[in-house]
């Protein structure tokens, strides 16, 4: 399409941003890779030496390692399931013409504007607290023993909080996708004898597939690195029940002052994220090139 002339110019114009992006990505990655092969503990910062694969072995043999990977997957999948299904449901609802539509939509997307630690603290102290949380009040009203969420269901509690934060994002993307559904197609299906349920199955869901793919891909990127919500609520516990990979790295690097071990964990996390990415692109990526 473009002529030789515009192509050269375009490359020239793009060059600075590509270079900055490369440095931005490559330097931290290279440094992490470098430190992962060093014995570098902040308690003894003078004794830096080559460690070989010891850091990897150390991180791998951590008793929390496999549980943290499992927790990471559960966290990602749980939040994805809640946000995609819930987001579709809410998008369908607020797509209907109602009184005060603008305000309702703003309210629905507002959780997205609350910073993660703040949201987690509100959930911890005002909603899920076994003594004076909203859930406890409801339980007491019905005369049931209140649930101590973070002690009894630590990972599930974190999933709920994170899902609450990401629900608006999914809703917003799915709502715009719903609104782009051709009204004549819907009317054609109506004339073809499809009821609301069939129209949803055969028309709306296929139409939403691309938007759902975008939601899944973008959310997965962020959900693999969930950290703040765990830190302010359960601190990874009880035991390692709500420790994900990111939190385990934090534990190793900052609580154990072990920069080398943390870096090795970071590299393992990068490898795992790429494996997840490959699976994801295989599974849902084909929806994107239509």
């Amino acid at each position, binding site marked *: 399409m473009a002529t030789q002339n515009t192509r050269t110019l375009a490359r020239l114009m793009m060059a600075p941003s590509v270079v900055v992006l490369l440095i931005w990505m490559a330097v931290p990655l290279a440094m992490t890779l470098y430190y992962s092969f060093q014995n570098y503990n902040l308690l003894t910062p003078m004794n830096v030496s080559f460690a070989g694969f010891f850091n990897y072995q150390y991180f791998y043999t951590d008793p929390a390692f496999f549980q943290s990977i499992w927790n990471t997957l559960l966290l990602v999948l749980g939040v994805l399931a809640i946000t995609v299904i819930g987001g579709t449901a809410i998008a369908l609802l607020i797509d209907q013409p109602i009184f005060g539509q603008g305000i309702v939509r703003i309210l629905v997307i507002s959780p997205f504007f609350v910073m993660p630690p703040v949201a987690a603290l509100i959930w911890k102290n005002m909603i899920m607290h076994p003594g004076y949380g909203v859930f406890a009040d409801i339980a007491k009203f019905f005369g049931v023993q209140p649930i101590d969420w973070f002690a009894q269901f630590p990972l599930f509690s974190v999933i709920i909080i994170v899902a609450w934060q990401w629900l608006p994002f999914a809703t917003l993307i799915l709502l715009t996708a719903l609104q782009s559904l051709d009204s*004549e*197609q819907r*009317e*054609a*299906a*109506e*004339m*073809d004898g499809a009821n609301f349920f*069939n129209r949803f199955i055969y028309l709306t869901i*296929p139409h939403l597939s691309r938007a759902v793919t975008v939601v899944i891909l973008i959310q997965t990127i962020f959900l693999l690195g969930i950290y703040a919500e765990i830190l302010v609520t359960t601190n990874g516990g009880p035991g390692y029940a709500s420790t994900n990979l990111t939190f385990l790295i934090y534990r190793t690097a900052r609580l154990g002052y072990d920069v080398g071990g943390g870096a090795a964990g970071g590299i393992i996390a990068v490898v795992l994220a790429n494996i997840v990415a490959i699976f994801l692109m295989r599974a849902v990526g084909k929806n994107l090139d239509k």
Partner: protein
Amino acid sequence: MGSITLKNVQKHFGEAKVIPSVDLEIKEGEFVVFVGPSGSGKSTLLRLIAGLEDLTGGTITIDGKDVTEAAPAARGLAMVFQSYALYPHMSVRKNIAFPLKMAKMEQSAIDKKVEAAAKVLNLTDYLERRPSQLSGGQRQRVAIGRAIVREPSAFLFDEPLSNLDAALRGTMRLEISDLHNQLKTTMIYVTHDQIEAMTMADKIVVLNRGNIEQVGSPMELYLTPRNLFVAGFIGSPRMNLITGDYARSKGAVTAGIRPEHLTLSKESGTWKGTVTVAEHLGADTFLHLDVDGIGQMTARASGEFGAHHGDTVYLTPDETKLHRFDDKGLAIRA
């Protein structure tokens, strides 16, 4: 099967009375065309019949059954939309099969019907393709196929050819007429293009601002337009409408003469005019003239007429083909 009666049908959108009141009788097997300028309510009327809009007042009867409150699917009608409204993620086969699948028909019966429809519409080679891989004309045929398999009591077409190029439009016009001759099912066709209306219709319904101006066969509308609106709308190029002394001398407020009923001459005639634009088509010549004492007129000569911009040309009207209208714009019949 396929007679439709509209009785005092009304549609208001808030304050706007899009259709004040329409009465219409559509007989079984008729090809009816709703024609009118944009905003004339022709599409709204079609959507009311389809059940895609709620009536403000009046009743719609199909085959003697009151369907005013019935759901679209329950009316036994099939519709072809302007955008074709094909389901983009389904193959052509699945698109055509969709209404049958919704009717919970046996898979083997569905296959048979889809194959048959595809054969009629020349789509057999394209059954496994997606709509996005088809040309405009093919998509149009898939949309028609999806309508045919339901064996509806009437087909509704909402400006189905307006997204096609001129050549293809001509072909599809023939195909739809052909289909009507084969199926002998009632068809209601909405268009703003009077050529489509004239060539395809058994009966034309001319709509203007939600009111029916005239109902009749194409030739009735051409020969005896009931009022100024129909006279100006049917026929291409448009009828010349003349007011003033000439009209008064004929006992009318407005006199109408079609471009093809003017005889052109370079020597003498009733009126003298100067050519502003000459369109030479080979088979016809259209002359746009500035006529002394009357103003802008259009004349049509069969074959080539050698006149160009600035030439002086004489016109003689065929007064047996003159249309006369009174002060309300209604035709005066002698």
